[in-house]
């Protein structure tokens, strides 16, 4: 199976604008929808939001009126696409239920990207992030019970994704300098690495924005504080992933790469979608993106003299991004890297940090007085007699997390405790 967006014809831009009733898609039913259909809807909303934000940022820095007009034209179509996609999410799907969907996206999208990442350093970047989003899913799943949601998180995720402690969220909080990784270069990196990076930045940015904006909507104080804490980590993830992008990419090349990425992802959604109605939406949007890509490439060649044939792979792409279980892979990453933290651009076991590393001061500052991600598990135990988990493949692979998802029994905790005692 392969797909070359540069050789396919799209819908002419002047025929892409739709009426309000055309845009107001029939939402899916939260109880019937396949978990991975929900995941595709969530991720493609994130992709469209990034397309729009990227276009706005470019427009703010480009004086050329002709380029601004092209950006505005395509951006209007992207805005309509974003509505058509995001309005598939029904009003009867609660915020916490939708949040579970967001974290399933984070886990299984990052899992696929990590497994298909050709560069060993960039693979480490994905593996570092995935254990944090895995833990967020577990913390929110426990919150879901405390908020009186009448279903369990596993009814949202199906049996596709286990819900278990990852790297405990309490340990995610790092000094800002420790989120900045080594960028790839567009010139020398594998093209899949570029597609992977634009995809993950879009998804994490969307999650960050979502929690920043909805985290204050619950009245439940436990919910408000957990969203606050995890929203801060999602911003870290945006810094972490965006720092692997090539910062020297010219603006119009950046635009063309974004459009190519959208084509790849809509094609991926189309070939893997099980819901025929929603599959049709992916197909229509792909046809629109092909035209957006054509316009971006035309402008890039005319203004900057960059030939698309020199940038994009000659035979297109062959692997659709596929939502599928990553259970074995996650258990392997847990076993290998749970105790890692970040120091500048490197990932190191936390017990190898120097005694005066800024991680310890930052942890002491933000975690003073209680940590919501720990409290949510304690509260769940108090109210229900145990914490919530959903394991399909046996016991947790980390002994200290087998029975308890709170941090006190972990090696990570002992390292921090030792530091405090010696400070």
């Amino acid at each position, binding site marked *: 199976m392969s797909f070359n967006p540069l050789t396919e014809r799209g819908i002419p831009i002047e025929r892409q604008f739709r009426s309000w009733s055309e845009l107001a898609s029939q939402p899916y039913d939260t109880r019937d929808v396949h978990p991975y259909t929900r995941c595709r809807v969530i991720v493609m909303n994130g992709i469209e939001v990034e397309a729009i934000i990227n276009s706005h940022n470019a427009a703010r820095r480009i004086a050329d009126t002709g380029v601004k007009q092209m950006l505005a034209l395509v951006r209007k179509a992207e805005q309509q696409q974003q509505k058509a996609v995001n309005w598939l999410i029904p009003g009867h799907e609660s915020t916490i239920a939708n949040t579970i969907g967001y974290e399933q996206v984070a886990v299984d999208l990052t899992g696929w990207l990590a497994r298909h990442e050709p560069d*060993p350093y960039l693979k480490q970047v994905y593996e570092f992030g995935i254990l944090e989003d895995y833990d967020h899913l577990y913390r929110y799943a426990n919150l879901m019970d405390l908020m009186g949601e009448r279903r369990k998180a596993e009814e949202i995720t199906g049996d596709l994704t286990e819900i278990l402690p990852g790297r405990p969220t309490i340990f995610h909080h790092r000094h800002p*300098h420790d989120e900045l990784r*080594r960028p790839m270069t567009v010139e020398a990196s594998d093209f899949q690495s570029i597609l992977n990076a634009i995809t993950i930045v879009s998804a994490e940015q969307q999650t960050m924005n979502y929690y920043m904006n909805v985290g204050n909507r619950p009245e439940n104080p436990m919910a408000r504080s957990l969203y606050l804490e995890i929203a801060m980590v999602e911003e870290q993830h945006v810094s972490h992933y965006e720092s692997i992008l090539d910062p020297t990419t010219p603006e119009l090349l950046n635009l063309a790469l974004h459009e190519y990425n959208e084509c790849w992802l809509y094609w991926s959604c189309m070939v893997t979608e099980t819901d025929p109605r929603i599959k049709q939406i992916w197909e229509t949007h792909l046809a629109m993106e092909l035209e957006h890509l054509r316009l971006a490439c035309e402008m890039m060649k005319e203004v900057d003299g960059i030939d698309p044939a020199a940038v994009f792979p000659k035979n297109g792409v062959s692997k659709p991004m596929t939502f599928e279980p990553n259970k074995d892979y996650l258990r392997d990453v847990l076993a290998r890297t749970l105790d890692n933290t970040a120091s*500048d651009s490197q990932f190191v076991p936390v017990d190898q940090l120097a005694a005066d590393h800024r991680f310890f001061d930052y942890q002491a500052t933000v975690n003073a007085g209680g940590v919501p991600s720990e409290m949510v598990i304690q509260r769940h135990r108090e109210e229900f007699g145990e914490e919530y988990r959903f394991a399909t493949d046996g016991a947790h692979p980390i002994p200290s997390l087998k029975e308890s998802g709170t941090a006190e029994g972990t090696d990570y905790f002992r390292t921090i405790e030792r530091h405090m005692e010696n400070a």
Partner: protein
Amino acid sequence: MMTQRNETHEGLHRAADKASDALGGMVGRASANSAGSTSAAAFAENAAIGDMYEIAAGKLALQHARSDAVKAAALKMIQDHTTSTQQLRSAMTMNETKGIPALPDAIDARRKTMLDHLQAAPADKFDATYLDQQILAHKETVDLMTGFRDRGDNAQLRSFAAGTAPVVQRHLKHMESLKAQLA
């Protein structure tokens, strides 16, 4: 108590060390402007050793410097050159740098000599010695980074140089300014 004869002797030693550091700096800049500017292997080796020297010199300065401004500058050198060490190590694990020899894990003789001179500097001359060395070393590092950024034969390491060059340019400016202030 130091006699006049001992003071003269000590003064000659310091002058010799300073001259040796200056000569080493010239050799370093020549290297940075030739192979270091184009060859990925030479660049990576030089950049790694430069970082090691800066961190070691910074640690000595934190221990021995008299001026708070010099201590603050030394702390910044440790932090910034730790960042560039990590960035370079990360770059060297990427496919983009496959085939380039591994980074050295020890400093070279030239930079070791500079550290020895710094360690041996008398207490009242430490700050001046540190700043003199920092100016020499950063002139070399600026040449290395800007040269490779513009002419280097590896895209990933050119990217690393492009990210590091402005940082070390600011370092050089700061050290020159400190030296003028403390003169």
